[in-house]
């Protein structure tokens, strides 16, 4: 597909586009599923395609194709052009772009063990070994499922501003779900690992921190109680902190949501949006992290962004378009799932910066509260800032001690209310929720995290 890049750009210019960019993506991937002891499904695939975006009279058109011929590529360019034209004729909103030229650049994740060099047999055996450790841990484990994927992605981005960025990124990810059953109660727990790195991630994974950890948690939840409902002070572990930072805050700090009037953070730059203890960062430059990129899908260098500093909102995440509309510099947050999709504003690795307290200190001076661990589900409305998150497990905190184990603990409220109520930030930072974030039908690899944080008087609830 590479040979069609220049052709597509030339065709777009010839038709009269103000701007055009082209991306080619080639993927080589493996995925394996082990269920209840059998790795009976193995997938090995290659895929490639090309996407072209054109700006005509201020309006966007986008087309993609999997057909690697000169004719198909020219047709895609003409399709994109005529769609933009149709939009422009019908009074679509006019767009301008920040002119940022990366020129020629390249970027490569160099795996210690290239997944392409590892046989399917070896990967399957390793999957089975890790799944077995969870399945055979206790007779009350009734079901286990391990999913493994690796992906080697070669991408080339070029645009009529003169940018040309070549990249190769390697992703490795696995997750395990364990279901335990006893006396009519069924509970599940999960663990995951994911890096922009090679097969070494999976090869060196310890069963104790992955398989056995998930099994132990599912078993413990069988005996857990239901949480109290009402307002409590809550301590959030790193994963809950990360989920909240990504879902409730991060999506609202995406400039396209702000411009669309769909973000509670609109017009808040320079204002206090959180407790002074809170600093929030989106950082794609962390090597190895699942959300690591060096250049975004528009060919712009991906930068570390301090979104909130000591409680004050500093700015948003941007594409070439949103940065131009807001009159700021782009920061490399335009990402697309693959060649089929146009770049939109996305997060990378999003977290709260560590503070000075230990977890023990946070628990010690808490008379009554709830400790929430592990994220299972989150939902937020960026327009209103209202959210609901469910933790995988929780504990009551009574008189400075962690006591009864709880299940189905949920946390809900409004983002400003929660961020403003943070009264302690831990020193125990981790990034540890590698996953795929969905937005507008596209999904991209991201990570999130932070330290333990404590929040005063928030709404805690449960399933029953």
């Amino acid at each position, binding site marked *: 597909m590479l040979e069609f890049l220049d052709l597509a750009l030339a065709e777009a210019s010839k038709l009269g586009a103000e701007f055009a960019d082209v991306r080619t993506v080639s993927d080589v991937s493996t*995925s394996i599923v082990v269920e209840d002891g059998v790795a009976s499904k193995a997938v090995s695939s290659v*895929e490639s*395609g090309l996407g072209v975006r054109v700006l005509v009279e201020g309006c966007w*058109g986008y087309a993609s194709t999997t*057909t690697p011929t000169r004719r198909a590529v020219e047709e895609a360019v003409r399709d994109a052009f005529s769609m933009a034209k149709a939009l422009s004729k*019908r009074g679509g909103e006019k767009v301008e772009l920040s002119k940022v030229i990366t020129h020629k650049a390249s970027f490569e994740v160099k795996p210690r063990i290239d997944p392409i060099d590892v046989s399917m047999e070896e990967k399957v055996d390793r999957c089975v070994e890790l799944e077995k450790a969870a399945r055979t841990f206790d007779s009350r484990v009734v079901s286990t499922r391990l999913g493994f994927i690796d992906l080697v992605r070669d991408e080339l981005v070029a645009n009529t501003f003169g940018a040309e960025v070549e990249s190769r990124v390697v992703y490795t990810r696995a997750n395990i779900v364990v279901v335990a059953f006893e006396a009519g109660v069924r509970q599940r727990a999960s663990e995951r690992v994911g890096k922009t790195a090679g097969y070494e991630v999976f090869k060196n994974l310890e069963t104790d921190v992955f398989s056995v950890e998930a099994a132990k948690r599912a078993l413990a939840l069988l005996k857990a109680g239901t949480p109290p409902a009402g307002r409590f002070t809550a301590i959030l572990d790193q994963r809950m902190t990360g989920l909240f930072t990504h879902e409730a805050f991060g999506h609202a700090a995406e400039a396209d949501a702000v411009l669309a009037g769909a973000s509670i953070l609109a017009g808040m730059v320079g204002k206090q949006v959180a407790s002074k203890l809170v600093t929030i960062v989106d950082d794609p430059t962390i090597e190895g992290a699942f959300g690591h990129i060096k250049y975004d899908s528009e060919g712009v260098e991906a930068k570390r962004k301090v979104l909130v500093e000591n409680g004050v909102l500093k700015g948003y995440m941007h594409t070439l378009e949103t940065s131009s509309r807001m009159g700021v510099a782009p920061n490399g947050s335009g990402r697309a799932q693959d060649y089929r999709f146009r770049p939109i504003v996305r997060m990378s690795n999003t977290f709260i910066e560590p503070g000075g307290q230990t977890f023990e200190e946070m628990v010690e001076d808490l008379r009554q509260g709830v400790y929430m661990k592990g994220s299972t589900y989150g939902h937020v409305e960026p327009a209103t800032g209202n959210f609901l998150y469910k933790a995988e497990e929780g504990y009551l905190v009574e008189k400075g001690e962690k006591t009864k184990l709880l299940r189905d603990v949920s946390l809900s409220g409004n983002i400003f209310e929660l961020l403003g109520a943070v009264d302690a930030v831990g020193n125990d930072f981790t990034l540890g929720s590698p996953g795929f974030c969905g937005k507008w039908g596209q999904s991209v690899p991201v990570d999130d995290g932070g330290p333990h944080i404590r929040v005063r008087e928030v709404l805690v*609830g449960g399933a029953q």
Partner: protein
Amino acid sequence: MFEKYLELALRQGADQAEIYVARGKSLTAEIEKKSVKTCSSTLEEGAAMRTYINGGLGLSYTTILEEKQLREMVERSVSAARAANPDPEFKSLPEPEELRKVPDIFDSETANTESWVVVDLASEMVRAALQPGGVESLKGAVSVSSSEIRVENTLGLEASERRTRFVAWIYVSSKRDSDTATFYDYSIGVKLGELDPVKLGEKTAEKAVSLLGGKKVETMTSPVLFEPQASASLIGAVIAALNADLVQRRRSFMTGLKGRRIAGEALNISESGRVEKGFMSRSFDDEGVPTTEKTVLRRGFLETYLYDTYTANKEGVSSTGNCYRGSFRGLPTISASNLRVEPGNTKVDSMLEDIDRGLIVSIISGAPNLASGDFSEIVRQGFYIEKGEIVHPIKYAGIGFNLLDFLSNTKVVSKEYVEYGGSVYPYLLVDNIRVAG
């Protein structure tokens, strides 16, 4: 057509093989804030090959349907099957059966839609949605797609079909002073000509405005009236738990409940891949098995789970034709097609009259835990009711229940219903819901 690749798979050592080929084109106009923002098209084709060796499954796909790439796909698939663990539970791919066409699942006008048509429809939806005062911003899309699906396997099965679909959705944010509210709705179908963008835009916007002025509610245990969109989410979750694979692996709260009474008498639910003009309709499922129409819940009794060939063989029953692939990229799974919750005889007005103190819930956006059936959600689109009258919209209220309790506490099903692309959802009145203020 692809016979030689199936034969190649057998020659390389596969016990059985199947090729799934999809060619598709889609067009989408996206709405952002107050106008149509982008128009995009996708043209894609792909072939996936499933091969089995001693029950172990290998899958590989390619987006280039040329001799060389297809041969490589076969090789990768067979070597993946060889690497996979043997699975004694695998009996066979499906045998060929006679296929009866489902009428009206392909519309050539929809398939040949030009880009300006989706742009116009999206623009009309925007204009309609901006009519009511107080609408602050919109998000949404109108998209149309056509696809040709082909399935062939080494047992001689051969099936192919063309289908078209449209999806229109709109998310409206409304604002008055510092108060904001949101509402969301959608329309799906087979013929783009049947989309009414004005009605969808207008109704959704009116609802978003009517939800302004929301107040908190007190903690209570009360009846809840679920509107059709909320019913669709909850019933959808209940049906998702009937996936035979989840049940057989004891990962579903529906495990062991077949034949048992799990819901109130009022609930009758059927599932069908054969509804005329149904969004999810198709003559055969994604491994070539004829689709069926079946009763899932009859007067509260659970009659069947949903099967593909693998899970059906495991239990010695017939596939219900529910094998599903999102695209050629993924492993096949099990999924419901069109659902019909049989409407009852009671009018919504009289259901409301019977509520002394309770809620109307318009949208459910959360996902329940299918292993336990537990579900909790913060409702932001709904109303507080006293003595049969709407008192005010809800700012937010937490609701929580187990889906089995939801089913057994569903007491009344309304006469009125909403149709989403061949699926039918009435209002459901459910007792004893715990509401947290």
